[in-house]
């Protein structure tokens, strides 16, 4: 799949809250293949970086340029939040919602949503009110809902935080399938095992700045900076 989104060129982009800089200034170029994993200590700006790239955090400076125009770009992306935002409707209603937004008929949307629910193992709870699902089921639902419009780029903000091992494995399996099908993934995590399993590229954030950026292979073999090395070892890095 050739994406119209890439290359993504980020120049001097930052996000502020008041006078505090949450992330940036960031200079970054992203191409259309692979899985980029964003790591770094708490408060390093992982969430802010993802939100900034997706365009739901207001830019304090700099620019983010997609290969296509911004509105088109947003339509080709989706975002999975750390604590899944589940709409107060049925599982089916949640899955069908993004399709209905595109103007698809109710019948078609429901058919697609039903198929998507079966793919992620939610097929037997279509009519269940989604807010009452378990944590793992909710995150799978959020993921399936994000994927239902077949985005070319999917952002995931620590999707497996607070999930148990089994749910994490299920989510990772879906992500691997998704990536294999050609969807670009940019995902933050604090789980280094997960980072090693999924990443083709690593962004190491520290104090709101990209401290190290390289291929996963190189990074995990031996990071260039002392801080990244310490972080990988599990030391406290500031």
């Amino acid at each position: 799949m050739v994406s119209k989104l890439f290359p993504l060129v980020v120049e001097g982009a930052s996000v502020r809250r008041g006078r505090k800089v949450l992330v940036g200034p960031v200079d970054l170029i992203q191409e259309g293949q692979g899985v980029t994993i964003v790591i770094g200590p708490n408060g390093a700006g992982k969430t802010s970086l993802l939100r900034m790239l997706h365009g739901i955090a207001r830019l304090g400076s700099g620019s983010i340029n997609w290969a296509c125009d911004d509105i088109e770009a947003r339509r080709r992306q989706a975002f999975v939040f750390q604590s899944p935002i589940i709409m107060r409707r049925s599982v089916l209603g949640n899955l069908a919602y993004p399709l209905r937004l595109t103007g698809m008929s109710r019948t078609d949307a429901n058919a697609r949503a039903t198929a998507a629910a079966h793919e992620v193992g939610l097929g037997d709870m279509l009519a269940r009110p989604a807010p009452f699902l378990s944590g793992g089921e909710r995150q799978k639902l959020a993921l399936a809902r994000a994927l239902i419009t077949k985005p070319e780029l999917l952002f995931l903000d620590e999707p497996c935080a607070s999930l148990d091992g089994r749910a994490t494995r299920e989510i990772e399996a879906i992500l691997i399938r998704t990536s294999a099908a050609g969807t670009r993934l940019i995902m933050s995590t604090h789980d280094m095992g997960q980072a090693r399993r999924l990443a083709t590229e690593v962004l190491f954030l520290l104090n709101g700045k990209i401290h190290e950026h390289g291929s996963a292979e190189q990074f995990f073999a031996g990071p260039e900076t002392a801080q990244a090395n310490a972080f990988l070892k599990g030391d406290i890095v500031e």
Partner: protein
Amino acid sequence: MIDIWSGLSQAFWLLVTLDADLVEITLRSLRVTMTALVIACAIALPLGAFLAVRRFRARRVTIAVLNALMGLPPVVVGLIVYVFFSRSGPFGVLGLLFTPTAMIIAQVIIITPLIASIAHQALRELWSDYHDLLISMNTTQRQRIQALLWDGRRALLTAALAGFGRAIGEVGAIMVVGGNIDHHTRVLTTAIALETGKGDFALALGLGFVLIFMAIAVNLAIHYISRTEQEGRW
């Protein structure tokens, strides 16, 4: 206390014998209030959602005004509507004064701020939940409002029922604009005021109990309908 018992027994007999006048004014009460409720909801619910979703300069002022209007004495609303719809007023040619339509207009004015304010409170919370998701999905303002109205429908039902309660029990405004004309604009509350004025407390209380029964019945009916329409709790 004797009045309470005789009121209850009056209510009982009025109900079991299906007194023709009682049925007439009860149905009129329901028709006027239900119509007012539908119109008020059509205005207030989207307004509440809009205020939750949209940040604009006059927003705080609008919310403050809505909250203040909730406490507007119905008689004042009645007088304002009267002045506008009097034959000597700007809309006098419509000939709506002392008709059920004028009563509906007054009730719409009374309950719209109430419903909008409660709806706004409820939808503001829902919007803080949905904010990131709906922004991420690139939704239009209209789509956001639609999503909030649909997913918040249970809270909105409460808002609507609060509006119903205020409208069905309202007497000050509809007395002024409806005129309490027998077989034309007399409703339960104005009939109660009339009987109280005559000192017939038992009949007034009886009608009051009928009003209470009806309000309870409507509440139960609406909850029953809304529960059977949707499986699950949302």
